[in-house]
Structures are given as structure tokens and as C-alpha cells.
């Protein structure tokens, strides 16, 4: 057997060090069919985990939708309060016409006042009659021949109901005011309710968001594990990380989007029915309270909610899938 050292061959090749080339792999349309096929197969292969992930995302999204709808309506109630409740300033009976005019100027010039309307005792009685309806007859009989007991008032509309207390304090320094009527407690309750709702909404959404990411991560991890062999082979034959990653990302996105669409459809119908039943029929205290309130319609809420929910769902999906596949790509 003849042996021939190979060292001489070293000199036959011209060795050059070439700079590393930058190559960018992106989602190609040609591969999209392959990716989607893999995604659907994977979702069907792990039916139970896929279903669990969708349910968790859907639960998270229901919370987001409820928080959004509630906050949106409470802020509408506040706007309503600002424009319709305002403050009623009852004027001292002894005030002369000149003093009354001066008081009106003072009130109008005070900050946070959008409008100050004078209401005479006669007008006030007509308003009272409208509010009381049939019961007005009894009062009218009782007042027969008597002088109208109602005071002259200014009905003041505020620019910002959150500054109601400060505005009242300013009014109290003016001369000629008997007393001031204002539903301060209702306004404050709504303001704090809105703040609490925003905080609770944020915490609930954040918690469910984390749950969703964790459960999607687990679902994709199961998929990745079941396809680990395939990933290794793909790496050996020269698949780029992005080629391997895309079906998993699409799986996460699909879970996120389906988990968003289901609660969107469900809450659309539920919300419409709820508002309708609260404002058009029923009886009792709640009906009395809410029939006058202007609820947000589905047409106002959902055009904003749909993109938020779908983007959020897709985002949760991407986050879950990317974190679960990272370590499996090191082959």
C-alpha cells in the first residue's frame, strides 16, 4: 500500500478570507402556502392545547372588551353630567334686580362655567310640573291662592364636572346666594369609579395577558417538541431560522386572532341586547336611573375595539411563539 501525505495539497488552493455576507430572510409569498399548511396541521394535531389557548386568549379579550366598554360609558356619563347636571344657585329673596344682574355677571365670569341661565320661580314651577307629571295636580291644589314658594335660581352648566367642588367654593364667596344645590357626591363617585375602573381594568387585562402568553408559549412548546426532529433536519438541509420560525409564529397569531374574534362577536350581541333591555324596557330603580343616560352604541365602541383586540391577540400570539422556539433553533 502506498502512502502519500496530503500536506502538499494545501498549496494547490488559493485561500482567501471573504467577509461575511448579510442575507435577509423574510416572509416570502412562495412559502406562505407551506407555512399556512404547517400551521393548520399543527393546530389540528394539538387540538386540546390549541383549544385551551384560544379559550384563555378569549377570556383575556372579554376582560379587555368589558373594561373598555365600561370605561367608555362611565366617561360618557361624566360628559353627560357635565352638560346636564351642573349646579343650581338659589338666590336670596331680598336681592334687588341690580344686585341680581351683578351676581349673574360674577357667576358667568367665574372659571369653569360654560353657561349660567336665570330661571324665574314661575319657570321653576313649570319645570317641576314636568318632572312630577300627574302628581303635580296635588301640589297645584295645595298651592291654590298661595304665592309661588320657589326661589329665583341660576342653573349653571360646568365645563368640567371634576372641578365642581372648587367652583362651588368660589360661588359661596358671592353676595346674594341663599344656598347651592349640587350633586357633588354623584359626581365624585363617578370620577372615582372611573379611576378605579381604569386601574382594575388595567390589572385584569395585564394578568390575563400574562396568562395568555404563558399558555400560548406552552402550546407552541408542545408543537415545537413534537417537531424537534423535523427542526433539526430542516437545519441540516439549510433552512434559515426564519423559515423554521414562521409556521410557529403563524400558529401563535392564529390562536391570538381566533381568541379575539370569538369574544368580539359574542360581546357585540351581548352589549347590544344589554343596552337595549336597560333603556327600552323594564321597571324599577335601575331602569329609572339609566333610561336617561346616553349609552355608547356598538357602532361607537366596536370600530375602535376590533383593531385593538385583533392586534393585541396577534401580539400575544407572536410573543408566546417566539419565546417558545428560540432555544430549539440552536443546531
Amino acid at each position, binding site marked *: 500500500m502506498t502512502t502519500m501525505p*496530503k500536506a502538499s495539497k494545501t498549496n494547490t488552493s488559493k485561500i482567501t478570507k471573504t467577509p461575511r455576507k448579510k442575507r435577509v430572510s423574510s416572509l416570502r409569498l412562495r412559502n406562505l402556502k407551506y407555512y399556512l399548511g404547517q400551521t393548520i396541521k399543527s393546530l389540528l394535531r394539538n387540538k386540546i392545547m390549541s383549544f385551551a389557548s384560544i379559550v384563555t386568549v378569549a377570556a383575556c379579550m372579554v376582560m379587555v372588551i368589558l373594561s373598555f366598554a365600561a370605561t367608555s360609558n362611565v366617561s360618557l356619563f361624566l360628559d353627560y353630567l357635565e352638560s346636564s347636571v351642573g349646579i343650581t344657585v338659589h338666590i336670596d329673596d331680598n336681592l334687588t334686580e341690580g344686585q341680581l344682574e351683578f351676581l349673574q355677571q360674577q357667576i358667568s365670569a367665574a372659571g369653569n362655567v360654560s353657561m349660567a341661565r336665570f330661571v324665574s320661580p314661575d319657570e321653576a314651577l313649570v319645570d317641576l310640573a314636568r318632572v312630577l307629571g300627574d302628581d303635580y295636580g296635588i301640589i297645584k291644589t295645595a298651592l291654590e291662592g298661595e304665592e309661588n314658594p320657589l326661589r329665583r335660581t341660576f342653573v349653571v352648566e360646568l365645563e368640567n364636572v371634576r372641578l365642581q367642588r372648587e367652583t362651588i367654593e368660589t360661588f359661596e364667596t358671592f353676595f346674594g346666594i341663599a344656598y347651592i344645590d349640587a350633586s357633588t357626591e354623584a359626581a365624585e363617585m363617578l370620577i372615582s369609579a372611573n379611576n378605579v375602573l381604569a386601574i382594575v381594568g388595567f390589572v385584569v387585562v395585564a394578568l390575563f395577558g400574562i396568562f395568555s402568553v404563558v399558555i400560548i408559549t406552552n402550546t407552541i412548546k408542545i408543537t415545537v417538541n413534537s417537531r424537534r426532529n423535523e427542526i433539526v433536519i430542516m437545519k*441540516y438541509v439549510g433552512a434559515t431560522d426564519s423559515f423554521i420560525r414562521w409556521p410557529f409564529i403563524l400558529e401563535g397569531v392564529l390562536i391570538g386572532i381566533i381568541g379575539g374574534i370569538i369574544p368580539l362577536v359574542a360581546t357585540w350581541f351581548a352589549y347590544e341586547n344589554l343596552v337595549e333591555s336597560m333603556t327600552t324596557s323594564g321597571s324599577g330603580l335601575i331602569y329609572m336611573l339609566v333610561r336617561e343616560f346616553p349609552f355608547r352604541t356598538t357602532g361607537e365602541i366596536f370600530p375602535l375595539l376590533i383593531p385593538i383586540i385583533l392586534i393585541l391577540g396577534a401580539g400575544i400570539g407572536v410573543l408566546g411563539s417566539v419565546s417558545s422556539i428560540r432555544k430549539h433553533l440552536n443546531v
Partner: protein
Amino acid sequence: MIKIVNATKIYENGSRGVQDVTLTIDKGEFAFIVGSSGSGKSTLIKILLRELDLTEGEVFINNEDITFFGKKEIPFLRRKMGVVFQDFRLLPNKTVYENVSFAMQITDASSREIRRNVPMVLSMVGLQKKSKAYPNQLSGGEQQRCALARAIVNNPPILLCDEPTGNLDPDTAWDIMNLLDEINSRGTTVVMATHAWDIVDAMKKRVIAMKNGFVVRDVERGGYSNDDYA
């Protein structure tokens, strides 16, 4: 085509995969890497595939320094090399055709190219009639031929084989060797790590013997030596 200069690989546990290996394999060559288990044959294949980072030394493929290739470059390097393993590594839920076409899909080949090339290589390895079969419906030899078809479907200039006949009976092993010889005769550089002394002796190709990570013998048209088992 392949140049390894003073390559040393020390694993995290301190064991040495290869030590100070320097060798060149020219374009169109057929080289056997022989040696006992743990001699460094598979480590060498893994270094060429850039599955392992070198501790010291350099590796060049086609005059390109691949020693420090990053995540982005490795896939494109691997497309220049077909690879065949002892355990076939076919995807069980894909047919023969899909197992082969899948290697083209990842390279962004058009469906037209796939439809043209896959039947061609399947016919070359004699599996054209089994294209719809799943791996578990194939014999060991057929599975390895499918793996071979997958390795060459992108027409790589280099074919790396890690014990490709290790799981096959002698007759089937020779079928695979004949195919490898044919692929080599078409200009593909073939590097094959193996224990199969009878094949190495009969083929009369270049033999690179390894022991404890060192290259201890490098002969043109050689055979297995008794020392290679030690």
C-alpha cells in the same frame, strides 16, 4: 474545496473531539474518514457542517473562511453540502416525495423546479415507484436512498456522509456505495465517515484515519489498517 487548518475542538467537559487536524480535500475527491468510535470522525463532519465551533484553527469551504460563520450564514453554507446520516433522519409524516421536495422548499425553489428535480433524483436512486410511500413503509436501504436523494436534490458540490451504511446489510450497503460512487463521478466531492472496512478496502479511495482526535494516516487509494480499530 475543503481545507481544515490546525483544527482543535475541545468539548465543554474537557474531552477532545479533534486535535490539530490539518487536511485538504480537493474538488471531486472521494475521501473516507476511518477510525474507532470516539476517534473524531463525527466531530470532523460536524465541524464541516458548522454544527460545532472550533476551539482553535480554521475551516475553509470553497476558499471561504467559515470558521466564524454566524447564524445567518450557516443555512446558506449547508445548502452547499448534502448530508446523510446512519439513522436516515427522514420525516415520518412525510412521503418519500415530500421528504425530498422539502429540502428544495427551504431554499425557496419554485414549484416548477421542485416538480422537475425531485422525480429526477428519485429515479437516480431508484425510488421513483415509491414516491408516495412513507418512511415506515420502506426498507432500510430504501430509506437511506431517500435520504441520499434529499441530500443531492439541490445539487450540492459537497456530500457529507456519517456512517451511511452503518444500519444496512452488506448488499444494501453496496447499493448505497455504488450510488455514492456515481454521485462522486459526476463531480461531487464526497466525504464519508465509516467503520465499514470491507467497503473502504474495496473502493480504493483516499483514506484519512483518525485516532484520539488526531489524523494518524492519510493515504491515496488506501484501505483500512489494523491500527484503525485500536
